[in-house]
C-alpha cells in the first residue's frame, strides 16, 4: 500500500521558508492564497488577464517583502492589502478614467433577498462588469473595508465623491441583480 505523506506547514513555517527563498514554501504560499487573491484581483481588473497581471505583481511584492511581515495580525489580510494596493496602483498607472455616474436611471427595489439566488461567481461577474467608478469604490468600501477617506486618498478623489459613488455603485449592483434574477426566472 502506498501512502501519500503530506506535511502541512503552518503559515509561520511558510513565511520563514519564503524569507529564505525556499521555492517549496513559495509554491505552497501561492497555492494557499492564489485562488482567493485572484478573486480580489478580478474584482478590480477589467478582465482576467489584467487580474493575473495584478496577481503576479502582487505575489512578487509579497515574496520580496515577506520579511517585513511582523507576524502580527492576519497574514491573509496583509496579502489582501498588498493585492488591493497593487490593483489600485495599476489603476493609477493606467490613468484609468474614474467616471462619476448618474444614478437617475436606477430604480432599486429590495435586493437583499435576491442575493441568495446568486452564486459568488455571479456576483463576481457583476462586480467585474460594473463601471470602473463604481467598482473600485464598492470593492474598497463594501468588501475590503476601507473608509471613504482612505478610498478618496487612494483614488485621488474627494471623500464625498467616494460616498456618492459607493451609493450609486450599490444601487447599480442591486439593480443588476434584480435584472439578472428576472432573466433567470
Amino acid at each position, binding site marked *: 500500500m502506498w501512502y501519500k505523506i503530506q506535511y502541512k506547514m503552518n503559515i509561520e513555517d511558510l513565511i520563514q521558508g519564503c524569507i529564505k527563498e525556499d*521555492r517549496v514554501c513559495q509554491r505552497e504560499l501561492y497555492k494557499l492564497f492564489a485562488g482567493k487573491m*485572484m478573486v480580489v484581483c478580478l474584482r478590480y481588473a477589467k478582465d482576467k488577464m489584467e487580474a*493575473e497581471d495584478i496577481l503576479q505583481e502582487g*505575489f*512578487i511584492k509579497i515574496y520580496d517583502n515577506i520579511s517585513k511581515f511582523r507576524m502580527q495580525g492576519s497574514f491573509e489580510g496583509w496579502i489582501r492589502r498588498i493585492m488591493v494596493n497593487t490593483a489600485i496602483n495599476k489603476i493609477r498607472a493606467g490613468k484609468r478614467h474614474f467616471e462619476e455616474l448618474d444614478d437617475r436611471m436606477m430604480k432599486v427595489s429590495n435586493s437583499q433577498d435576491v442575493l441568495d439566488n446568486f452564486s*459568488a461567481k455571479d456576483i463576481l461577474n457583476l*462586480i467585474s462588469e460594473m463601471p470602473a467608478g463604481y467598482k473600485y469604490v464598492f470593492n474598497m468600501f*463594501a468588501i475590503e473595508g476601507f473608509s471613504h477617506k482612505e478610498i478618496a486618498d487612494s483614488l485621488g478623489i474627494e471623500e464625498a465623491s467616494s460616498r456618492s459613488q459607493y451609493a450609486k455603485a450599490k444601487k447599480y449592483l442591486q439593480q443588476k441583480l434584480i435584472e439578472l434574477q428576472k432573466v433567470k426566472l
Partner: protein
Amino acid sequence: MKNDLFEKQISEKLDQFQVAPSRDLFNDIMKARTPQVKKAFWSTWRVLSALLITATVSFNVYKLLPTQNDEIAFSEKSIVSDKENQESAQESKVSNSTSEQGVKNEMLGAIPKKQNRKSVNATFKSSPNEIAKGDIVENNNANTLFNGNVFESYFNANSKNRPTIDYEKHDGNSHLYAFVTESEKDIDKVMVNHMKNKLFVPFVNHFPKLSLIKVEQQKIESVNRMTKKPIYIDLFQLNSFSKPVISNSQFQLQNMGALATNSASFGWGVNVELPLKGRWNVFSGVHSFNLNNQYKGQIKYSENEEKITKTTRFINDPIKGVITVESFDTSLVSVSKSKNIELQNSYKLIQIPLGMSYNFGYKSFEFSLNASAMLNWSREQSFQSINWQNDQVNKTESSNILFGLGVNAGIKVYYPLSNHFKVFVMPGIQSYSMNGVKSSYSHNESLLAKQLQVGIRYSVF
C-alpha cells in the same frame, strides 16, 4: 453603510470563493523574480570585482608610487624655502663624500627618517624588494624620458647627454643609477636608470615613479661634474685550447707523420671596455699567456745493422766420425724503426685585442657579443726539433720579438654579483699565426684556438 446586510452578504460570498489563476502563473512569478535574484547576484559580483580591481590598483599604485619609506628622491634642503629647510640647507653643504657615504649607507638598507631626507644630497628610500621588482625610469615632471628602449638610453654614452651619476644602487640583479643634471633645462636628461636586463619587457610600465627634485646649481657643482661614462674593467683567467697548423709544408714533422695535438695554455688578461654608442662598447686590453703547441707522432726511419749469419756443416770422417764445422758471416742490413716523439713549441705571448662588443640582457644575465682584432707579440719562445743526425730532440730558445695578427670572437655572459662586480665567462675562438721563421725556428705556425675566459668585471663610473 458597510454593515448593511447587502454588503455583508456579498463579502461573505466572495470571501469563500476562489478562482484558479493560470497554471503557469507561479512559474511566471518566479521568472519575474529571477532578474532580481540575478541582479543581486551580479551586484555582488560587481562589488567583488570592484573591490578586487581597487585592491589591485591600490597595490600597484603602492608598489609603483613612492611613499614615505619607499621612494627615491633627490632632495635638497636648499630648494625649500622655509626656515627649517634653510637650516637643512646648511647641513647639505657637507662634503660630497659624506653625502655619498650617507646615501650608500641608506642604500645598504638603512631606512632614513623623513627629516633626514632633506639633509642629504640624494636620499635613497626604497626597499630592496621594490627595487628588485621595479624597472622604472620616470621623473616627477611626468616627462617620458624613456619612450624608447631604456637600454638604449642606458647604453647611450654620448658624453654630452649622459648626466652625472649621483649615486647608484645595486640589489641583486637590479641596478639603479641615479643621475643629476646641471640645470633645470636638462631635467629631461635626468635619468634614473634601472637595468634589470629585461630586454624584451616594456620597461615604462614597470618602473616605479621616482621623485626627482631639482638640485641647486651650487650643489651640483660640488658633485663631480665630469660627464662620466661607465668604465668596465675585466680581469680574467684565460684558458686556451689550441691545435697548431704547420704552415711550412716542408716541415719534417709532417713528412714524418707527426701530428699536432690539442694543447692547453693558461694565462690571464685585463680588458678595459668603454661604452661607445647605443649598445656598442669598445674594448682593449692585455692578455698574457704561455702558448704551448704540442706535436705528437711516431717517426719511422731505417737503420743499418750488422747481421751475423751462422752456417753449420758436417764432415763424415771414417776415423773420427762426423765432424761439425761452424762458420760465421757478417753483413750490414737496413732495418725499419719507429720512434714516438713529443715536441713542444712555446711562446710567451702577449695579445692586445682591439674590438667591439654588442650588449644586451636577458633575465638576470647580461650578454655581449665580442669581436676583436688581436695583435700578438711574443718576446720569448722555445722550439723543439729533431736532430736527424742522432734522432735526438733539440730545444732552441729565442728571445726574438715576434708579431702576429689574429682575430677573436666570443660571447660573454655576465652575472651581476654585487654593487660593481659581475662574474663572466666567455667562450670563444681565436685564430692567429706565429711567424717562427723569423725566430730560430724553421717554420711558421697558425692556430685555431678555443678559448675560455673566466673572470670578473668591475664597473667604474
